[in-house]
Every structure is written in C-alpha cells, then in structure tokens.
C-alpha cells in the first residue's frame, strides 16, 4: 500500500513536475485585456506588444480577451488569467483573486467631472435635480462611477442618459440636449478646446490612476519579474518603441509606455469601489 502510495505520489509528482515544466515551457501565459475595443482591434494592438515582451522576457504570452466586460470580470474573478491589463481587479467583488500590480501606463491620474455649458442657468449639483444628465456608459470609471457616486451621495436624483462614450456625452451637452454631463476632465478639456465652446464644472473628483498591469499570484515570481522588466524597458528599447508606436497607430492614440507600479498607487480606487453607492454592473 505504501509502495502503491509512493508510486502514486511519485507519479503525481512526476506528472506535476512534467506538467509544470510543460506549462512553463510550451503553454503560453494568458494575458487578459480589458474590453475597450473590439476583440480584433484589441488583438491588433496587443499581440505585437505581447510578442515583443515574450521575446524579451522569455515568457510566452498569449492574448486572452473576453466577448463582453462581464465575461472579462468573470475571468478576473475566477483568476484564470495569468496577467491583466485592466482595472476590474480593483472592483470589490474581484479583489479576492489576488492580482498584484507590477506596472501601469505612464501618465497622470484622471478626474471625473460634472459639467454644464458656461451659459447654463445651472449653478450647482442641486440644480440638476430631476434633470437629464448624460454619461459615457455604465462602465466608465471617471465619467460615470465617480460622477454618479457624487450625485447619489449629494442625494440628487437625475435622469441618467448614456451616450456610448466620452465625446458622445460631451456632444449632447454642446447640442444642449442634456442639462449636464459626466465626463473625464482630461477628455473634456481637449474636446471643448477642439470644438470651441466653454463649459463650467459643477463638480470634480479627486485624482485616480485607472488601469494597471497585474499578475496572478499563480504566476511564478521570476516570470512576473521578467515580464515586468520587459514591459518597463520597452520605452527605452528601439524595438519596443517601434512596436508601441505601431500599435498606437492601429487605434490612433499616443503610444503607450509603462512605468513600475504597486497596489498602493490604486488604494483610492480600491476604497472607492468598496464604498461607492453606484451599482457597478459587471462589464
């Protein structure tokens, strides 16, 4: 029996070792990405970056996208993704999956704003009582989660409308089809400057860092470190810059670059999600 157990234990160990080795050598690590774009655009953006990071780090990475936000959230919650580029891991319900931040995109923290047109008679959030307020969408952290949370905390009931994205909500405001809009402060400023109109800020949030590169606790530390270093060095590596630039061109945005980060830099977000009165719907 003992021999049988020993044999079984050896077999299991062998299997485990073989399996681990095999996983570590041939199976690529899944890298989940938040759904901001179509799966195809997402793949076109991230696959070159992951190929570069895989080559540099020696850790094979494979994009893993979900069809929907809720599916992505579910994957995060289930911890089945080895790496993440998302903020769904900060949602209160998902924090148990244990993802640890190791890097984040370079850039300032963002702020959410509730804005009206400069000539609007609305002077305070209270004036928005019962009014139409347009938001980008229900998953928008800066434009909806923060702004709606502020309105709810102020006890102001508005008629929420969703324009689909940030500039859609801003366009509704400019066209005077809505009394106010919940927006990202950075995007709003750029939009108003480009469209040539003035607005007035009724409310503004504190600053929040939004997305982070995180690793599952199941991924060995060296792999995480290797991957982290590869990401952080991309901006200094000509090959990395070329990849980042090409990917940015696919989605028509400024090239990303990454800086090292820890969970501490996202504490206010963790706190917000733990205390928010907004019902966060799975994405």
């Amino acid at each position, binding site marked *: 029996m003992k021999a049988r157990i020993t044999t079984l234990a050896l077999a299991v160990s062998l299997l485990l070792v073989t399996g681990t080795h095999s996983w570590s050598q041939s199976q690529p690590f899944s890298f989940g990405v938040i759904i901001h774009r179509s*799966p195809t655009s*997402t793949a076109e953006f*991230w696959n*070159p970056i992951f190929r570069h990071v895989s080559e540099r780090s020696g850790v094979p990475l494979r994009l893993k*996208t979900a069809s929907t936000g809720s599916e992505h959230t579910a994957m995060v919650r289930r911890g089945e993704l080895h790496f993440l580029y998302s903020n769904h891991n900060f949602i209160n319900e998902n924090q148990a999956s244990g993802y640890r931040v190791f890097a984040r995109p370079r850039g300032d923290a963002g702020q959410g704003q509730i804005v009206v047109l400069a000539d609007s008679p609305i002077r305070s959030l209270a004036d928005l009582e019962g009014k139409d307020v347009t938001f980008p969408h229900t998953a928008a952290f800066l434009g909806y989660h923060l702004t709606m949370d502020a309105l709810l905390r102020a006890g102001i009931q508005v008629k929420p409308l969703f324009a689909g994205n940030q500039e859609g909500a801003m366009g509704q405001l400019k066209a005077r089809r809505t009394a106010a809009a919940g927006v990202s402060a950075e995007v709003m400023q750029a939009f108003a400057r480009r469209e040539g109109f003035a607005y007035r800020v009724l409310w503004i949030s504190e600053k929040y860092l939004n997305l982070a590169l995180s690793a599952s606790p199941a991924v060995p530390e060296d792999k995480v470190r290797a991957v982290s270093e590869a990401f952080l060095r991309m901006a200094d590596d000509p090959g990395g810059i070329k990849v980042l630039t090409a990917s940015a061109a696919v989605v028509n945005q400024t090239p990303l670059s990454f800086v090292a980060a820890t969970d501490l830099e996202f504490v206010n977000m963790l706190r917000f999600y733990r205390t928010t009165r907004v019902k966060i719907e799975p994405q």
Partner: protein
Amino acid sequence: VNGSRVRRAPVSLSLTARLVLGSGLALAGCALALLYTVLKEEIADHRAALSQGLAEEMRFAIPAISGPAVVGDYTVIEQMLKARATQPTVARFGWTDDSGHTVSARGPGVETAAPPWFVRWLDLSSVEQSQPVVVGGEQYGTVLLRLTPALAINKLWHGFLQKLAILVLGAGLSLGMTLLVLRTGLRPLHALAASARRFGQGDHGVRIPLRGPAETAQCIGAFNSMAESIESLLASLRRSEEKSRILAMQVEQSSDAIFSSDLNGVVTSWNRGAVRLYGRRAEEALGAPLRELDLWDCSKATAETTMPCPGRARPASFETCAKTRSGVVEVSVVTTPLVDDHGGHLGELCIVRDISALKRKEAAAEAASHAKSEFLAVMSHEIRTPMNGVIGMTALLLDTELTTEQQVYAETVRRSGEALLAIINDILDFSKIEAGRLELEPAPFPLREAIAEALKTLAPLAHGKGLELAYAIGPDVPDDLIGDTGRLSQVLLNLVGNAIKFTDLGEVAVHVTAETVTPDDVTLRVAVQDTGVGIPADKCQLIFEAFTQADASITRQFGGTGLGLAISRRLVHLMGGRIGVDSHVGLGSTFHFTAQLRRSPQPAPRRLAASSRALRGLRVLAADDNATNRQLLEAMLTAWETTATVVDGGRAALAGLEEARRAGQAFRLVLLDARMPDLDGFAVAERIRQDPALVDATVMLLTSDVKTGDLARCRNLGIAHHLVKPFTPSELLNAVLLALGEDVDATRAMAGPAPPGTTAHPPRLQVLVAEDNAVNQQLISRLLEKLGHGVVVAANGQEAITMYANRPFDLVVMDVQMPVMDGLAATAAIRQREAGHPGRPRLPIIALTAAAMPGDRERCLAAGMDDYLTKPIKLEDLAAMLDGLSGRPRVATGLATPAGAESPGQADFDPTAALAYVGGDRELLGELLTIFVEDAPMRMAEIRQAIARGEAAALRHSAHSLKGALKVLGASAAAGQALRLELLGQEGQVIGADEIAAALDRDLDRLLHSVTAPKDG
C-alpha cells in the same frame, strides 16, 4: 454506255424549297452562332461571378471570423459559418484553428438540372479558397470556402432552352412569312411563265397585267416590253422580208442584167435579165469568174466615171459594148461595191443595160436638136439682119435734116424696130434657155459702175414719167466681181423696166446688198422696189411663168411679151440665185433676186478715173428727200473720205449750214436735190447765195428731171454744177472735182483711161468691111466714116480675100455668114496667107454675128478672128472695139467728128463731153449752150476788169465760174486757162494774168464761134 449517254438533269428543287431550305439553313446557322456566342459570354460571366462571389465572401468572412477567433468563441464562428452556408452557391464553409480544431458548415446542395453533356460543354467547376486569419501578426486559424457552379449551370441551361425556343420560333415565323410572301409573289410569275409559253407558241399578242410585288411587276413590265419589241420586230421583219422578196423579184424580173460577184470576182447572183442579155443560164454563170464571162469590152468603155474592168472596189458608170447572144450591142454598165454594215467589202454589183435602142433615139434627137439649133441660128441671123438695117438706117435717118413730121415718123420706126428687136431677143433668149443652150460668159466687172450704167439707160424713161430712179449699194458689197454683167444687167433692166412701167407716181429704188461675202465669192441680193400698182398675192408666182402676166389686161395696157420675168428667173437660176417678189396691191412691189458671183482678185476696168484724194476731209452737206438717194450719197461721200453730213430736206440743209457756220466749220460743198417737198434745191441755193457767210460754199444741184429754165436758174443762183440722176460714182466725182475747180484731166491721166471726147481721136484707119447685105454695108460704112475711118466694102468672103491681097488694111470687119465664102473661111484664108508672109503684120479681124447661139464667139476666135460684134451694131460698141484693137482707151459714145474733118482743138466745143455731162439730153445741152453764149462774154469782161483793177478775189471768182462752164463744154484748154487765172487770183496776184486772159479770150472766141455755128448734121 457508249459515251453518248444523256446526263440526267440534277434534281431540281423549286424556288420555294430552295428559299425555305436556304433561309432555314442560314437562320439555323445564325441562331447557333448567336446561341454559342451568347452562351459563351454567359459562361464567362458566371465563371467570373463565381470567382467574384468567392472573393467577396472571403472578404466578408475573414474580418467577421477574426473577432470570435481572437476571443476563441467557436460557437459564434459556427453560427456564422452556418448562416453564410445557407447561400445556394456555397458548397462548404469551414474554420480550422491552429490546433486543428475544425468547425464547418455545408451548403444547401443545389442539384444540377442540366444534362451531363451540357455540363461537360460548359466546363464550369467548383471554386475554392482557404485563407488564414491573422490578427496583430498572430494566426488564429484558416477559413475554407468552396462555391458550387450548380446554380450557374442551371441558369445557363434554362437560358439556353429559352433562347433555343425563341430562335426556333423566330426561324419558324420567318420561314412561314417567306412561304407566304413567295406564294403571293410567285403567282404573277406563274402567270408570266404561262404567258411566255403562249408567246413561244406564237401568241404574240399576249400581255400580262402589271400586278404583284414591284420586282415581279418589273419582270412583267420587261416581258411586256420585250413582247412589244419582238412583235414589232417580227412585223418589221415581215415587212422587210416582203420588201426583200419584192426587191428580189424586181431584180430577178428586171429587164436589166443584174449580177453580183464576190471579192474573188466569182459570180454570186445572175438574174433573168442577165440570162436574156448574155444568153447564159444562171447555172452556167454562177460560180464562174466574172472576167472569164467576157461581159463587156473594157477597151471601149466611155463615161464620166470609167471603170471598165470588173472586180474593182470603186463605183463606176460607163458605156461600152457587150457581146450578147444577139451580137455586140451598146450597153451602159453601173458597178457598185457591195459593203456590209461595217463598211467591209463583200464584192460588187453590176447592172448592165442594153442601150442600143436608146442610143439610136438619142442620135436621132441630137440630129433634130442640131437641126433646130441651126434653124434657130439661121432664123436669128435672118431676122436680125433686116432688123439691123431698119434700126441702124433709122438712126442714121434721124441724124439728117428732117421735118418735124418726118422726125416723128422716123422716131416711131426706130422705137417700133427696137421694140420688135427686144421681142425677138426675148424669144430667142427664151428659146435658148429652154433648149439649155444659154451659157453665161463671166468676165471681171466693176459692180457699181455696171449698176449705174444699166440704170442710166432707163433714167429717161423714169424721169419721163416723173419718177425718182434711185439706187443704193451697201458699203460691204465688193465692187470687183466676175460675172456675166450683160445677163446681170438684163435681169436688172427687166425688173426696173417693169417697175417703171407699172409705177405712175413715186419712185423706183434699187438696193444691192451682200447676203454672204467670202474671200472668193459673194452672193448679191438685188431688190427693185417700186410704188406702183402692186400684184395680187395669187399672181406673184404666176408672173414668173413664161407668156404670163398678172392680168391679161396688162398686156393690152402695158404691152410686153410676158417673157421678161421668165427669162430673168432662168438667168437668175443660171447665176445660182433665186428670184421672188413681195407685193401689196396699191402699195407697190419689191422684186428681188440673188446671184452668186466670184470676186475678182484684180480690180476690174472701170470708168472711174479721177482721184478722190483731193476730196479727203472736205466738209460736204448733201440734202435729198429720197432715202435711197441719201444712202447712195452717203456711201459715195464716205468712200471718198469726205466729212459728209446728209440731211433729208431743204430746211434741214439750211439748219445744217447755219449750225456749221456757227461752229466755224462751214461746208465747202453743198449737194442739193432739186426737187424736195419742203424747200427745193433752188430755194436752198438762193438762201446760200443771199448769205454772205455761205458764199464760199460750192453748190451742186442733183435732179431727176431737167425742166426748161432750170439751167438758167442754176446759173443765176451760182450753182456750180448740175447733175442728172442716176449718176455713177465716177460721174459725181468728176462733177464735184470740176465744180471745185480741181483738174480732172490730170487725175484721170494718172488713174486710167480718159473719158470720151477728152483725148485726141484715134488715127484714121483703112477698114475692109465684108458684108453681103447692102443695108448693113451702108450702115457699117457710115458708122466707120463717122468715126473717121476709111472703108472698102466686099460682098462676100472671097471678095474680101481678093481685096486683102490687093491692098493693105488696118482692120477687117467680117460678117460670119455670107454667100460664096463665109467669114470663118475667109478669116482662115487670110490667116493662112499671113502665115506665108512672116514679116507682114497680123491683121485684126472683127466678126459680125447674130450672137444667136452660144459658141459663136469661140468659133470666131478659133477661126482666127480677134473679136466679135453682135448685130445690130451700135456705134459705141464699134468705136470701143476699134479702140481696143488699136490699144487705145475705148470710146463710149460716137458723135465724133466726120472722117477727114479737122481734129478739134482743145479750146473747141466738145459736144460728146457736153452731152455726157447733161445725161444725153440734147435739149438741155442746147439750153446750156444758149446760156453759155450769153454768159461767157460777161465773165470774160469781169476777168478783164478784175485784172485791170488788180482785184485778185474777183479774178478768182470770175475765172472759177467761167472754168466750170468751159469744163462742161469739154473745152479743156480754155478751162485750163481759166484755172490758171483762178490760181493767180487765189494767190492774190494779177501779174501775168493779162497774157493768160488774152489766150483765154482767143479760145473763147473760137469756142463761141463753134457753138453758135449752124449744125451741119
């Protein structure tokens, strides 16, 4: 089997079957070609569509599958594939990921409805494509799509069936329509065929009504037209055959021998006439060479076109002898080459006629004709001889002192004789014409002179009736012509004589124009216009018939034989012309005739001698109310290069004078018609005389009739000259020169023969007259003596020869017909004797003939005579003949000084010239002489007075005036003295004039003496 087997005719399809078969095949061919082309295009389209569909489907599928592939959502991929695979063209749509996991969907699996052969022919196969799905450089799998052509095959098959059905239907309809049209269109063709059969069976009258389509109608029309042509051709052929048959019959039955030969001279036809003439049967002659038959005697052939020997290719007509079965007879032969329509020579046709009987008759007729001619000649001679005596002796009688009663009787005898002679001449002329023996004797002559001379003879007759006789000759009519001037004058005189005869009031005008003028010939047109009784239209042609006048009463009223116009017509025909008349009863007639004359390369001898150079540029005014005369004057004056103005009346003349005077271009010469209705010539002359400004103008009077006292009026009015119409151009020129004081004689000497009476008379000749008739002996002797010659008379030719042998003569006048020995024989004898004495000069011999027959002159000349005179002999002719033979200018008239008389001096009165100047009017001449006798001493006194006073102008005027009078009288020497005085006066001198005046005075005394001396007969 033996090679002569009749080849079976190929199966003949009807037109309908051919058309249907042909059209069907053509349509089927076209349809198949069309179908093939369309299908090929459609196959290509479907093949392209299939490929395009595949590419498009993949283009759509790859992006659509990329998203789920990235996410790894195979459910979505499967749903998507299944949804796309529902398309009928899709056979399979599949997805295989990198790990080999496959998701696929199959298409609906459309069945092919087309038969396998069609599918094989289409050669359309499935198309397939597989394409990897790569996103962001990562391959997620492969998409496979296969499309099936079944749907395209089914569409093509259905389309093929539809098109085939349409084409079959179209072809069927087309063929059906063709059949329908053919059936209706062929119906007239069947009728055409039936009609053609009937036509071919002899029904040539068959025609088809025009119906059916245009093409068929055209065929029917062509058939009808062809039928018409053939029917007409057949009718023509029948007529031609009938004609040929008749012709052949005529040839065959002709009494003439008619036969033909081919190019080798072999006889090809031989008619009955030939059988009769030559006694050879056709079988004998046909095929024999023409030469061997010896049909006529080539050596005796005589004809205008001689071609006596057969076998030549030229037409010939001749007479010869032929050996016939009845012996040698005279035959006429006509040979004509036979030629085909293209001018190719086929042979020769000969017609031989036995003319022996004809020849005998001809000889008899010739003998009769000769006898008739001889009789005519004898009769002419026998009639003319006594007539010559009657007329000649009467003329001589009239020259003697007669009582008035005797004068009247003698004149009557002379006129009756001349009338009888005219009638006899007419009858003889007509007889000659009828006998075809009248021949023209062309010689060069001056036309204008001839016309004027001819008319001049009738002027007294016209003027006696108070008629104007005028003539005008177109300026384009050439003057030097060759023709029988005698016959031309005869016609003209006949017409003018008739016109005068039948006109009581008005004028007779002769217009001569040229119808055609070439360098060699001229066709004259002479029109004689009168204002007489006229001729009814129905008589206009009748009057040209012999012995016919317009009205029988005319003969009674006017006399005449009625032969004049008939003779004129025949003479005109002889001259290559035609004669006719335009007439209106009561208004007058215009007789006109044409004559073709040759132009003479050399100027004809003419009387016009004076040079008109002195008149060049002279300003002349002429006035005459008669248009014809105006034309004539204008033509003459223009020809002399004067600056002439011709007006139609006295008032117009005065107006012209006045106008010219005002313009400072006064007229130097004024020619006035004496009788003009508004203001006559005398009145105009009087006005001129009264006007000092016009006194320098020389005035001449032209008149048709001279009335008593006219000459005195002329003299009183200072009229320089008086001329009787009609006048010849030379007469007017001479008169003008004389009136202007020009030296006519000098100019004549330069230009040609002198006028009568102005030169010295010819020397006295010794003339031998051989004439058997005593009257004629006396007449000729008297005439010759009048001309100043000595005469010896012989009664016949024998006596003449004897006298010729005994003494010398200068000339012989020999009657042709004399007893004992006629003139021709005598002449021959004389010429023979002359030949024996080479040193003896040739004696001129003039024949006297009746001129009854043509050829008389030739006979005379052939016998050795030099010229001939026609009886009755006229003094002028005799004188002219003598002058001609002696080489001197001819003398126109014969009132010469008697033989032996002293030749008149130049200062003496020349009655010949004087009479000529007054137109032969003795009464006028007498009056003129009376005036001269009164006037000349006065002018002489004026001259002497002017010399004494030294008045050159008066001298010139008086001398000029006297000179004119002297010229008229022919006193040329005295006129020359007067001219010298005039010239001195013109030069403003009188020095030396005394001597000339003294000479003139002496000449004048002698002249006055001769004028006033009693007439000695």
